[in-house]
């Protein structure tokens, strides 16, 4: 499939992505031109661009994406599974540094790997998300390995990660690693696989994509509404979804702890997350999420699951093991199937939603049914 087919420039972004509630806020279309800007957790069109071809729609993860073509270019065909994309192996890891583990949501694997790549010079800059306050995240580019740990922990709203990559990749040549959510990783994959004219050079800077498992992100406005409803004018000191049952959100206010049931939190999920098929960040070199054993939560609390997808990802994980900065644990044999089932569950939900909004069975706005299922 020709990647340029159907590239309608900003008109696609406006009419097929934003107007349909599909914009993920990955910010791939931000920073390449002055027509889109990112604010808080949303990408906005500031002025209309009348070009019929544009990098915005070429890179948009909700542009017309040839998922199959991308998989063929970026992964080894034999690794590709229908449920999880390319899989070279599934691991359970955690940082050997208790301080990092303490800061992290789970096992601190991402922080450990990013610090390692910076230290080893595999990458010169890492693009990470920073929880700016309780409702907004920002993207930062750092080069100091010791600074990585301070960015650990969960984020509730999307950060303009790809815009930050766009910004620094247009500067002096340097190797860049990006910690990305599935939508951000897909945008980066489109850039890597099909760099548009003028972008060939800057895309050589993209050296590594560490993916994050992602169920959903919260909408800044909705979250702010919920917090105001729960805490009124009280100052918010902290906010977390403890990695236990994932049944409540904790809101730490100056007057004490408020627990918000997850059903209420879920009313704040970004609309676009309903149209996402990707739980495990398929378009990364390796992707990292929480671990959950058949025996229950408590068993693997504080551990990560890592899906290695490329040789580069494998080499990085092996290096971390050899340096003794990641601890490994045997993965229960059921885990891969459980992960596949969970991933398939998200794909099915996504397809139902896309069918509803598009009114079609196969041609699901940004991609085709069979491509979502890695067929």
């Amino acid at each position, binding site marked *: 499939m020709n990647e340029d087919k159907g590239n309608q420039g900003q008109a696609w972004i406006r009419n097929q992505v934003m107007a349909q509630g599909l914009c993920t806020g990955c910010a791939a279309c931000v920073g390449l*031109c*002055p027509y889109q800007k990112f604010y808080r957790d*949303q990408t*906005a069109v*500031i*002025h209309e661009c009348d070009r019929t071809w544009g990098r915005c729609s070429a890179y948009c993860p909700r542009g017309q994406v040839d998922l199959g073509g991308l998989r063929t270019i970026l992964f080894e065909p034999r690794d590709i599974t229908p449920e999880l994309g390319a899989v070279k192996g599934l691991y359970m890891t955690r940082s050997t540094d208790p301080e990092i583990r303490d800061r992290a949501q789970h096992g601190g694997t991402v922080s450990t790997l990013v610090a390692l790549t910076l230290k080893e010079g595999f990458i010169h800059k890492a693009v990470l998300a920073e929880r700016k306050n309780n409702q907004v995240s920002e993207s930062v580019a750092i080069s100091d390995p010791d600074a990585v740990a301070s960015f650990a922990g969960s984020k509730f709203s999307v950060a303009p990660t790809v815009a930050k990559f766009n910004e620094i990749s247009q500067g002096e040549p340097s190797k860049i690693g990006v910690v990305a959510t599935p939508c951000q990783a897909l945008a980066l994959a489109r850039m890597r696989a099909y760099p*548009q004219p*003028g972008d060939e050079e800057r895309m050589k800077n993209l050296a590594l994509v560490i993916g994050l498992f992602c169920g959903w992100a919260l909408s800044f406005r909705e979250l702010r509404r919920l917090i105001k409803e729960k805490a009124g004018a009280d100052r918010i000191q902290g906010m977390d979804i403890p990695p236990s049952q994932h049944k409540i959100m904790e809101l730490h206010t100056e007057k004490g702890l408020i627990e918000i049931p997850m059903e209420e939190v879920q009313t704040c999920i970004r609309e676009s997350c309903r149209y996402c098929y990707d739980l495990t960040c398929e378009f990364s070199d390796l992707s990292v999420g929480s671990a959950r054993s058949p025996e229950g939560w408590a068993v693997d609390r504080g551990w990560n699951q890592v899906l290695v997808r490329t040789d580069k990802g494998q080499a990085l994980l092996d290096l971390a093991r050899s340096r003794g900065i990641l601890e490994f644990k045997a993965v229960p044999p059921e885990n891969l199937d459980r992960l596949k089932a969970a991933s398939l569950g998200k794909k099915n939900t996504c397809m139902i939603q896309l069918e509803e909004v598009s009114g079609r069975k196969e041609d699901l706005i940004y991609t085709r049914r069979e491509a979502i299922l890695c067929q």
Partner: protein
Amino acid sequence: MSIVSTGAKGQTALLMGNDAIARGALEAGVRVVAGYPGTPSSEIIQTLADVASNHGLYVEWSANEKVGLEVAAAGSFAQLRSLAVMKQVGVNVASDFLLHLSEYGTRAGLVLVTCEDPGGLSSTNEGDSRHYAKMMEFPLIEPGNFQEAKDMAAWGFELSEKVHNVVMFRSVTRMSHASGNVVLGEISPGPSKARFQFDGDMMDQMGGPVVTFPGMVDPMHRRQLEKLEMARKIFETSPFNTYTGPNQPDLLVITSSAASLYAREAIDLLHVAERVGLLKLGTTWPLPPKLLAKHLKTSEKTLIIEEGMPFLEDNIKALWTELGPEAGTKQFFGRKDGPLPPTDELNPDLVARALAEILGLPAPTADQAYMGRAAELAKTHAPFRAMTFCPGCPHRASYWLLNSALKQDNRRGFVCGDIGCYTLGVIGCGFNTLKTSHAMGSGTGLASGFGKLNRFGFDQPVMAVCGDSTFFHAAMPALVNAIHNRADMTLVLVDNSGTAMTGFQPHPGSSSDASGGELPSVDIARICEAMGAEVAIADPFEMERAEKTILDLLDKEDGVRVLILRQACALSPGKKGKRLFEMAVDENACLAEECGCNRLCTRIFGCPGLIWDPEAKKTRIDEVICVGCGVCASICPTGAISKKEVAS
């Protein structure tokens, strides 16, 4: 100095209508002049302000038209001939006071000049203030040529003193802004001593307190009607009502003001002077019934030609029915039932076509060769001028920022606006940011209302813009209302340091008077703070900082925020002709139509100082009109546009 001031008695001068009106006032010995600028009226006050010291006048640009009329009325009450000047929309502002004023009446002559804008060439409406004369029962006069503009302006003061009431003098664009020969009269020195008498009783118009009062309404109203009756009698024999034509014309034309010039031209063009009678009225309210009856009887067909609404048409028809059977059968033509158009400005061609239709003549055709040549010349000699902000206009930068902030905020926020150069925010040059535009100050009032709708599920951010002059003119009460009622809104004061659209007249925030003398300026920011608003000040040319300020203000909930975006008008006396930066375009860095720019500067930003070169496919600076504000360097995505400070 202007001939308006220096021209000797008997001298013939080529005068613009507004200058003729100013000269007429000087010849009448006017002492106090006040009003608010507005096209096509603004030159009258400015002309008089420029000669104020030579003739011992007090001239001011007032905060608004109501205050202007009040200031002029105070002059009249203190025995000085006084003049209030405004455009048609200003009469609406002044009308509250006008109702009271005309009920009580005046002492020394008081003339209210209204310059109106049929077709809305420089207005957003075709308001016709003549109806106020009928509604509020005071005399109305309208000059039919430039000599009359001077003579009737002077006579207006006499008339006002005869009937002891305000006289409305109505001009229109083609009377105010066109020029003609005027034989000058003598400038009267006028009295120099002002004194306000109030010792008499309430009905003693020349010596009692000047009040309208419950219980006095009926006797005062009766007295007012007597004044009107007096005016009617004077008008029956006024030399400003003229008739030319046969005794028994095929068609009687009744007309007034600039329309009388079109009627004369059309009669001449069609060679129908033998068939058409032309009754030109200079006194249009109250109508002189005997004069009209005499002429109405001479013809079965009457065409009424007037600028504005069918004011004469309706009132002449009413008069005809009052005349009863003796007036005979009549067929009326005009704007109401045609053949004249019901709206828009008239011109000689429209009038000639109407005349031809009624008289059964072929429609006059223009000289095709002439028209063709004119069209050709227009192509090469008249440059295309888009309706847009001037090069270096701070409003372009302000709207750029407001649009950008509102789009980023992403809640379908909008801006309510009103009248000023910044009305252009409605169209592309202001990035279509304005979503309402009405009367001066109405943007703030509407925002006050929108800002209270949250209980009905309304969640769009509300902003208003108003200019610095408009703030004093009409936005202050709206802002007070919004603050008191805790509306959720942001008022953006686009402060360009003057009444820019009408020619940079000073306003209460300025530090000079109409004649250039020093005055204390009233501080907008301190007023807003004292009212209880949170006030921020930013420079729209410092785009990054200003945009952040707007985004932060949009984030606040409940209560009123005021943002003053301060940057002087590019045409302001302090800036005009001075270039701050030399601008240049680096052709190699200019992305032009490529992805990443797509001509942002010439296609979207749209400053006329930037030119798209379609052959080279690059942006260029128009060295002639670029004022070097430097803003385009901030919006260029690649830094291809650079600015270099001009050594001062």
